[in-house]
């Protein structure tokens, strides 16, 4: 079930109500049942995979401390990684691998190999596998005590707010809180209110902004061959907005849902489009994933400790793998690779940039300079998003081609942009919603204050109005259900 569905609207209050009603020592069991129910609502069969990942990593946590030698410990880690990544690889990448293989064979006029399987991608597999593997590594590194209680551990892997799309939590954080549930899981009104506000704001981002702007981006990307520079540029910017609000909104709902039950999860997005560089962007975007790759891939590869060339190589590997993690398509790999290239080139050009700014006597601390950096970073990420959105590499390059084909600024004035699915009214709603988003992202970036904290600090009248407005805007302006069309009311068409 999705967070923005009626079933979740019924499921969540029931789970929370019983969570606080039943004795503390049984709450983790209740949450585990709820989490498995949540997962099985998508596809009951694939719960086997969730169970498999849970059992393998749980056992790895038990065996690693007991292993007498380093090699044995590494063997257990390798087994845990192999089984989980094979499972991930099979279900997520097998079809991609077969399609790529056949393309190569085709290029050499060799008969294609038929695909013996047809896998449906299990929901959340990329997330819970990484979450479970982080436990294996943390135990191996001695950063985490192995969890003996299999039920508590199973809850860590399957905790329902995180199951669909993260954040990818760390065992130190979430498993630690699960262990302390018996003592600490009492009802806290601050967490309750804060969690609900975050959920409402997450739904606002997803349903009012992301799903609305998706109409525009789908039209542009679907008809890019007829678009000129300005439309394709707007399409790229719109997709940047869409993916931020879609994913960021979903993360907020997950974090809020967990907080309602007293759990504190890691922040996943921190005003990413206010980053002044690509490196900074990745410290603000999908933080749980970027830190996972940093801690479990980049650093084990050597990080930046083995010289500059090795650092760049490690960066490229990390971002290429990150791209592949996002989707089984070469366009995702290119997207990841682009970000790697951005960082490598950025690092290489840093001394040049410093010399140039000094020579031109530019104040690097001035608002205008920093603003320029933010804009430039946004342009780079938006360009990369083209590969993320496009259905194929060919389409991505086709789209980029249109960016440079027809410079047509008049479309900004002749209202033809309203022909891409969002008329003036809907565009107005979108702009107003984005204005709210920008305000709170700026507050977050400069005042280090989140929306829930901001609202809860105000006096009660303002709080009530703000929360009511937020909820009503989701209910009324959110994109869901059937599009009511009064023109279907043909009164005389009996």
């Amino acid at each position, binding site marked *: 079930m999705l967070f923005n569905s009626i079933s979740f609207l019924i499921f969540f209050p029931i789970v929370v109500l019983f969570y606080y009603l039943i004795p503390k020592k049984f709450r983790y069991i209740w949450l585990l049942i709820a989490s498995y129910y949540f997962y099985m609502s998508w596809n009951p069969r694939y719960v086997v995979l969730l169970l498999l990942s849970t059992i393998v990593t749980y056992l790895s946590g038990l065996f690693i401390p007991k292993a007498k030698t380093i090699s044995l410990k590494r063997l257990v880690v390798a087994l845990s990684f192999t089984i989980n990544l094979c499972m991930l690889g099979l279900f997520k990448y097998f079809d991609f691998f077969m399609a790529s293989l056949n393309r190569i064979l085709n290029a050499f006029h060799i008969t294609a190999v038929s695909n013996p399987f047809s896998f449906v991608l299990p929901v959340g597999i990329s997330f819970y596998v990484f979450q479970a593997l982080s436990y294996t590594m943390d135990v191996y590194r001695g950063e985490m005590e192995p969890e003996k209680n299999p039920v508590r551990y199973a809850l860590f892997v399957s905790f329902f707010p995180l199951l669909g799309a993260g954040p990818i939590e760390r065992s130190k954080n979430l498993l630690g809180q699960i262990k302390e549930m018996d003592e600490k899981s009492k009802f806290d009104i601050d967490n*309750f209110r804060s969690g609900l506000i975050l959920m409402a704001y997450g739904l606002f981002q997803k349903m009012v902004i992301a799903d609305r702007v998706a109409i525009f981006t789908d039209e542009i990307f679907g008809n890019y061959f007829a678009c000129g520079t300005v439309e394709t540029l707007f399409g790229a910017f719109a997709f940047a907005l869409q993916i931020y609000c879609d994913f960021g909104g979903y993360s907020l709902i997950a974090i809020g849902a967990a907080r309602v039950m007293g759990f504190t999860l890691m922040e996943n997005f921190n005003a990413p489009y206010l980053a002044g560089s690509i490196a900074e962007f990745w410290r603000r975007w999908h933080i749980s994933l970027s830190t996972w790759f940093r801690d479990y891939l980049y650093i084990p590869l050597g990080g930046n400790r083995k010289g500059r060339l090795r650092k760049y190589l490690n960066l490229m590997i990390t971002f290429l793998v990150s791209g592949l993690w996002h989707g089984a398509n070469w366009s995702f790999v290119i997207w990841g690779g682009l970000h790697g290239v951005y960082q490598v080139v950025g690092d290489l050009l840093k001394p040049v940039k410093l010399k140039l700014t000094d020579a031109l006597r530019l104040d690097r601390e001035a608002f205008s300079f920093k603003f320029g950096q933010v804009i430039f970073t946004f342009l780079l990420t938006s360009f990369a998003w083209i590969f993320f959105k496009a259905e194929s590499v060919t389409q991505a390059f086709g789209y980029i081609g249109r960016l440079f084909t027809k410079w047509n600024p008049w479309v900004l004035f002749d209202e033809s942009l309203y022909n891409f699915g969002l008329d003036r009214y809907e565009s107005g709603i979108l702009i107003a919603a984005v204005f709210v988003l920008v305000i709170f992202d700026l507050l977050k970036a400069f005042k280090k204050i989140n929306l829930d904290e901001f609202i809860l600090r105000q006096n009660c009248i303002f709080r009530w109005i703000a929360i009511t407005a937020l909820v009503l805007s989701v209910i*009324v302006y959110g994109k869901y259900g059937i599009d009511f069309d009064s023109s279907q009311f043909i009164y005389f068409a009996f």
Partner: protein
Amino acid sequence: MKKPDLKIISTLLCMVLLVLSVIGTYNVLRWKDTEGEYIDSVEQLYNTADNLTDVVFLGSSHVYCGIYPAVMWELKGIAAFDMAVSGQDKGGTYHTLVELLKTQSPKAVFVDLYQTVYDNGIIDGNIYRNYLSLRPSANSVKQVKNYLLKEDKTSFYVRWPIIHTRYRELGPYDFYDNEINDYARGAYYDNFQSHTCSEININEVASTPIEDKNLCWINDIIELSERYDFELNFMVVPFFMDDGTKAVIGGVKDYVKACGYPVYDFNESYRQIGINCNEDFCDETHLNGVGAAKLTTYISEVILKDYPLPDRRGDSAYYQWEEDYKLYLHNRDLICSRDSFESIEEYAEYVKGLVDCSIIVSIEGEVSDEAYSFAQILGIGSAETAQGGKWLYRNGELTKLIGGNKGEQKLLKVGDFDTFYFRNIEQGSQYNIMFNKTPLNLTEPEILLLFYDDVLKKITFESIVY
């Protein structure tokens, strides 16, 4: 009081405010018959006091076009309620009746059989009309569960997924009640135009055996009649039907008769009723006001022959039927009297005689001698006519709004929410008259008359005098 307690109270109060806001928003966004000018028989039912209705009619547009409670009231003081709606399907009929029976105890119920030819409406609008009109209750939930064929039933149970995008079409009557719903009795009286159509098919056609779904539906209604102790009748309101439709309805008729219930096929007896296919229909399948009056008169006699119903006229509790009757007369007089006139003078006298009607008289440019005479009769002198301007004629009084000089402008509020905006941009500009932001003016020099009905609260027609 401890701080956590204050926070809990504040949170609870916030939730109460939220719930009230959501309910208020729902009342604004909930489905309303926008194409039907926010006039809704179910709303009218909810505005009716308990146990007043004596006779109820259910069915599709054939019924609300063809049966006029006002005519029954006029003839015999029968308190009838027309609960038919456009595209009413079997679920709509049954559950609307259940809803009515919560508060009313009719002596007789007449159910049209046209619904047996289709399941849900083909047009989404009619489906919404059937499945979103009733207030949320166990009855409305059962209606969706038992009769809706669409896959996304959840949206109809919850309603928000369907109605929330209505913010695109909100109008004044989403925030205020339409007064007509306070007293109307369900029928559609604004329907006096005539259309020549084919003669009604009265050929003998072999019936097809009744289908299970129709059989279940009939049995359910019969069970209701036994439970609530009302006299159940079935009928077929006159319309042109093909042989296929006739065969299906024939099968249902046979079953109903076998169950011992009367079926009045007014198609078979349309000549006896006096229906003229060239004059009494507004299109191929719906009676107009003249035809409806004839049919209703006939049905009244049928009813009174079978059921001793009291004459409710004079009873103050039945004021809604009295008001509904006035609405019917208003429509009939307004529309029927708009026949072709022999002379300009006759037309001018007609305009002067209208009541409850705000008539905008707009004169621009050089007009004909006949137009001058017309204006004179209304009370607009020759010099003023030559100069041009805009006037309001209402209940015998003439008021000048603006003259013919450039730059003059005036706002005129009419009805509850409507506004005319008059100005002289330049002669013949369509923006010289705006009605609720819509330009209405003619571009040719003439006398333009706009008739704003104060009862129906809309521009009912316009005419040109030249």
